[in-house]
């Protein structure tokens, strides 16, 4: 019985961890790399979900429909970046206000254009033995972990990643090193958007799709970004792990509501103890060493 309880807890954790990581990762890239707080993050997810579900309804196989969701969201992100977001670099708070406006517009436009609901997609892959949960959740968790690894490799090891980081740290110098910084901004934003789109695509079968679909991801995403701090990938992993554990543990004992409340309170306490997030702690140590000269 205790073994089964532990298994349940493990599965619960996998489910929540995947959800927090996937909800967060697009936002984290855009915030961590570009200093833009995207309050329309949920609506980027919405674009991915709609694109997926309509592609699926139009007859595409599910993986291709999801790919369509990702691509369409990325394109959408680039357009938005070129039109609006690029004016907001270095204006963190303004970026919040503007993206909130964008979110309002998008939700309502989606409603006007597509109506109040969209066709559903069933959860694929069937169920697991013993814990009786959907296999799909395990798939999501694997994708989440893979995504984080991939992103880490992309930003830390590839030329593109190093250039993108250089651009975000000092645009002018990067440009004078021969880097097309406009393209770097647009591509980084596109990656963030594509990730949000992927989240929408992956959760399209799990949650019925309505224009308010995106708001369901918002709280987890913001909390995890803040708890994670400036270092995108490491921060997201640590924060998702931490919040997922708290949420899963408390949910297991005291129910869903208490799980959520516990997660939010844990987040507040974490921010209080680590004002710059988990990775801020690391940066802090580094900075102090830098100051010593």
């Amino acid at each position, binding site marked *: 019985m205790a073994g089964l309880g532990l298994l349940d807890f493990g599965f619960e954790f996998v489910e929540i961890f995947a959800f927090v990581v996937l909800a967060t990762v697009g936002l984290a890239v855009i915030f961590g790399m570009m200093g833009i707080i995207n309050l329309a993050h949920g609506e980027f997810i919405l674009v991915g979900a709609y694109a997926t579900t309509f592609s699926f309804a139009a007859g595409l196989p599910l993986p291709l429909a999801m790919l369509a969701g990702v691509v369409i969201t990325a394109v959408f992100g680039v357009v938005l970046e070129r039109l609006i977001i690029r004016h907001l670099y270095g204006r963190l708070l303004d970026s919040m206000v503007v993206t909130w406006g964008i979110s309002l517009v998008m939700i309502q436009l989606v409603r006007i254009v597509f109506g109040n609901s969209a066709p559903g997609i069933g*959860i694929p892959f*069937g169920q697991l033995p013993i814990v*009786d*949960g959907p296999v799909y959740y395990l798939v999501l968790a694997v994708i989440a972990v893979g995504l984080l690894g991939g992103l880490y490799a992309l930003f830390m090891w590839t030329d593109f990643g190093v250039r993108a980081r250089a651009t975000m740290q000092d645009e002018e110098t990067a440009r004078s090193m021969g880097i097309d910084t406009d393209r770097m901004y647009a591509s980084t934003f596109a990656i963030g958007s594509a990730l949000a789109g992927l989240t929408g695509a992956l959760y399209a079968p799990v949650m019925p799709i309505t224009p308010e679909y995106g708001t369901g991801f918002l709280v987890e995403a913001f909390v995890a970004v803040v708890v994670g701090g400036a270092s995108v990938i490491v921060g997201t992993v640590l924060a998702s792990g931490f919040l997922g554990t708290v949420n899963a543990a408390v949910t297991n004992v005291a129910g869903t*509501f208490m799980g959520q409340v516990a997660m939010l309170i844990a987040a507040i306490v974490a921010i209080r103890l680590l004002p710059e997030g988990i990775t801020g702690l690391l940066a802090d140590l580094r900075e102090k060493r830098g100051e010593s000269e």
Partner: protein
Amino acid sequence: MTGRGVARRDVLAGSVATALTGLAGCVAEGGMVGFESGSDGPTLAVLEDRSRDFALTGTPKYRTTMLAIEEINRDGGILGEEIDVFAPDPQSDNMRYQDLTRHAIYREDVDAMWAGYSSATREAIRPIVNDHEQLYFYTTQYEGGVCDKTVFPLGATARQQLGAVVPYMIDEYGDEIYTIAADYNFGQLSGDWVRIIAEEHGAEVVGEEYIPLDESQFGSTINNIQSADPDFVMSMLVGQDHSSFYEQRLASGLTDVPIGTSTNMAQEYEHLRIDPPALQDVYAGVNYMEELPTDRNEAFVERYDERWDDAEYINQEAQNNYFSVYLYKEAVERAGTFETDAVLEQLESGLEVEAPEGDIALDPATHHMEHNMRVAHADENHEITFTESETIGPAFLEEVGCDLTSEAEQTQYEPDAFYEVA
């Protein structure tokens, strides 16, 4: 102004005992610039959400109401007067509902209003409605218990809906019930009713879970149900986040446990929005669903589809709005005037109406409806079939002793005050 009594707050305003008195004293209710609505005819307020959270359920309500009003106008209006409509979009925002209710009362001088989907909305505007003794039709299926002189909660109450489905489920499947419900007033009171009705039928609630409205991950809930292994689940889940439950239920293999509900399918048409067989063996206690196979209903659905090209599902509330407009028309015509008191008197005379769900009557004492309740069953293809209907009245308020014909109350009663619901 119509013949309303002087409202409570007007008196208070007059009693302000300082310099304010001077100012307040010279403020007339209508101000120096009077507001007359465009025509002399009746104006009805239709405050139904067409954006944000409740748009899914609000839009069909708005549309059937407009359909009814247009039909009436086409047939010559009420008392020969064409009906005007004040129909803004409250955007699922209770504060905006309050503003718009004031606007409807002061500026549009409406004769009756239909407003709101959620109980929260109703409770937000009821103080204003009470202040102005405004005739108000609230048509959502709800927790029940509102006993209010000018308010007509015409939707089926929890007692009526659960009274149809819970005994049916106990008969069919057994006596161990697991309740999952939205964590707010409606859900909690519905949970109470399930316990009360279960007890009346010798069944037992073996587990109970109240879920926050914005929760969309049901892993642990499904787990708990699986370990409790009930004969059936009673679901009073509400809203779009909660509809994820059914897909997750399917993916977790919980479809072998049948589900009774008072909130799903008839409101947010989950059986059409979610791919089969996620709602396989879901049984809803309803007074109406669009699929109801009667000639009268089929004609109604056809008229609706003709009027609105991108017509959405007609939910239970939309039907309630539709017939209640006709009910109001009947009352006005019997009264021969739009005066609130006279119309109230007629409404309290035991009117009957030919609704798409069947012929039903208004209970004068409680301002609630007797409904034709039936159990709707979704099969693995989400095809709906119905049981025979039975007429169920608003029993609870009668038991409580609410009689608005003799005493003008403005109360909401709750079952825990009258039943043992531990």
